[in-house]
């Protein structure tokens, strides 16, 4: 027993001591709140910085400078064989025809003058001319006003990244070129418009010609393969594990495996694809089919886990009702539970696909890095995907590549936002709250 005369602290004394400490405690409370707000502020500031940085470069990246010149389309020069065949056009002198028109417009003369003026226009211009002729052969033997992209250095100059004030030897554009650009500008022949090259062009080492079309097609094909493989397999596995799998060691093993796979870094799936599909099976590298398979294996755990959650969310009363009328377990699952769980499964799948769309490392491993100019026509043609294209472009130092890379990133983000929005809409519209 404790001392009988020892009393508990009288409330008055306690109240005094409490009051003494209040100011400090409230101060700590205020500071704590502020830390919380600062933390959120930092996170949001990072987000804003990231997006501003991308958008500020990306939006200009959708545009580039073009020059419009009057081109005399001399049939003899352009189509020497006279049969409008691809070979003939290649043998023809599209380049010369364009240069002639350019020199006229820029009032360029003399050897060094023409050399300078010639660098103003993009190297892809002749390709454009040839395509135009193939599209509409009737333009031959006429004079047409045609628009071609300017070279990316000229574009950088026009945007102000290359300055006149810089000494000539430090610039990529010499004074003569600037003179001709000024002439063209005064004549109003230089325009700044939406870059059709960005969207419809394919990979190119020339920044003004570079575009994401091939990568987009590659991404779509790869994701299609991924979806076709991952969705049925994922749903089937989820149904099996939730409903039919016996509670034994093997099932436990499968479940542990799935959870482990969800935690494995994505690079490792690429290594798997490299070692097995390419190393052992000897399948070709760099094709959307292999990319799709690798991405499917990577996305499977996500789809399985979210599908299982969707199945579990369907209340047992539905199952009981179906079984009560005499349906078999399989019929109950396939006719009743799975359709009800489908919105959740779709949502999970779309989100998995969105993650797969942004994946780069595993596809690098299986070789989708090759510099591929042709647009893939099928899942077995070599191709690349949009994130890998961004990765490759990020290495190039030209200003225009920086702008176009940012623009490509915006396209990628747009797709991701669309997909996530679709998932949210499906969830809101179709998911039932039990």
């Amino acid at each position, binding site marked *: 027993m*404790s001392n009988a005369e020892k009393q508990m602290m009288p409330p008055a004394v306690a109240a005094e001591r409490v009051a003494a400490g209040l100011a400090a405690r409230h101060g700590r409370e205020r500071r704590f709140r502020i830390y919380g707000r600062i933390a959120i502020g930092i996170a949001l500031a990072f987000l804003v910085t990231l997006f501003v940085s991308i958008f500020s470069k990306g939006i200009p990246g959708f545009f580039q400078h073009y020059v419009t010149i009057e081109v005399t389309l001399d049939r003899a020069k352009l189509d020497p064989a006279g049969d409008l065949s691809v070979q003939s056009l290649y043998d023809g002198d599209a380049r010369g025809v364009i240069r002639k028109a350019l020199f006229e417009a820029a009032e360029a003369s003399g050897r060094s003058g023409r050399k300078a003026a010639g660098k103003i226009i993009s190297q892809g211009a002749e390709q454009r001319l040839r395509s135009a002729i193939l599209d509409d052969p009737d333009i031959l033997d006429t004079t047409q006003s045609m628009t071609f992209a300017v070279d990316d250095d000229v574009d950088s100059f026009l945007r102000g990244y290359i300055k006149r004030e810089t000494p000539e030897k430090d610039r990529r554009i010499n004074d003569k070129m600037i003179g001709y650009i000024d002439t063209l500008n005064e004549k109003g022949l230089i325009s700044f418009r939406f870059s059709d090259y960005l969207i419809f062009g394919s990979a190119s080492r020339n920044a003004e010609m570079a575009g994401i079309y091939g990568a987009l097609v590659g991404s779509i094909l790869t994701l299609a393969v991924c979806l076709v493989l991952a969705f049925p397999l994922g749903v089937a596995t989820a149904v099996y594990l939730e409903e039919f799998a016996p509670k034994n060691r093997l099932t436990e093993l499968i479940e542990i495996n799935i959870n482990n796979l969800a935690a494995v870094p994505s690079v490792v799936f690429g290594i798997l694809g490299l070692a097995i599909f390419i190393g052992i099976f000897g399948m070709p590298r760099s094709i959307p089919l292999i990319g799709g398979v690798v991405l499917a294996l990577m996305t499977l755990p996500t789809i399985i886990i979210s599908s299982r959650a969707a199945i579990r969310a369907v209340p047992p009363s539905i199952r009981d009702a179906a079984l009560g009328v005499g349906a078999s377990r399989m019929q109950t699952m396939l006719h009743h539970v799975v359709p009800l769980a489908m919105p959740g499964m779709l949502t999970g799948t779309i989100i998995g696909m969105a993650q797969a769309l942004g994946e780069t490392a595993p596809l690098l491993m299986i070789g989708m890095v090759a510099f591929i100019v042709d647009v893939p026509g099928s899942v077995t043609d070599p191709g690349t995907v949009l994130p890998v294209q961004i990765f490759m472009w990020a290495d190039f130092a030209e200003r225009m590549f920086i702008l176009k890379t940012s623009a490509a990133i915006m396209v990628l983000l747009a797709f991701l936002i669309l997909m996530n929005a679709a998932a949210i809409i499906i969830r809101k519209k179709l998911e039932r709250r039990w």
Partner: protein
Amino acid sequence: MNQQGKTETLVSAAIPDETVGNVFVDNPRIKARDVNVFYGDKQAIDRVTLDIAEKQVISFIGPSGCGKSTFLRCLNRMNDTIDICRIEGEIALDGKNIYAPDVDVVPLRARVGMVFQKPNPFPKSIYDNVAYGPRIHGLAAGGAELDEIVEMSLERAGLWNEVKDRLQQPGTGLSGGQQQRLCIARTIAVSPEVILMDEPCSALDPIATARIEELIDELSSQFTIVIVTHSMQQAARVSQRTAYFHLGKLVEIGETEQMFTTPQHEMTQNYITGRFG
């Protein structure tokens, strides 16, 4: 028809506008005047006025959902933690309205402590559970004084002998009854003036309940105790005054013995005899 031949008119069996019985006392500890409590649009407490006497046990009884817990939680402003809860009226502790805008909730809750329905010891050691209050309020000048406070609180809560050899063990490892006594020790460690108890025995077995009721009796010599209970027998055993709530209104209040033998309102009588609730 009236009870025991008394000729006082029994008011009708509708909720009275005015509370029946002795609402006021001399030198009250807590005064509640015209208190209304709203959860959003729903009114939970309707114009309740009563006094709580010092160093006495008063019990709040009534059927489920009658608002007794809600009113209890007003007395130490625990309802502040619920966003949609709105309170009108005045509740004065020692003459000062606790809902005045300049009132600091922190010391208020050190003066008016609370024991909850389900024992909720912290996942800390027994010592740290009891020491938590004194520590945050800075009541102890040093380690020795803190040890004293912990020991005395556990003793007054009737738990000291059982746990004195295992103070460092987790509080969650005790039995239900012991946990509730630990929570009581925790509450009295900050030397409150009033202890609020919200159905403290409803989660306990009869033996543990009996011990706690004994404890309440002992504590009432030092603290003012307000206890919400759904057991009328408990109210009769433990409290000196009783307040009967019904659908948010205070129907009747008075000396416990009188209320249980000769209730003045028919509703009270119906509740006590088990007609409803």
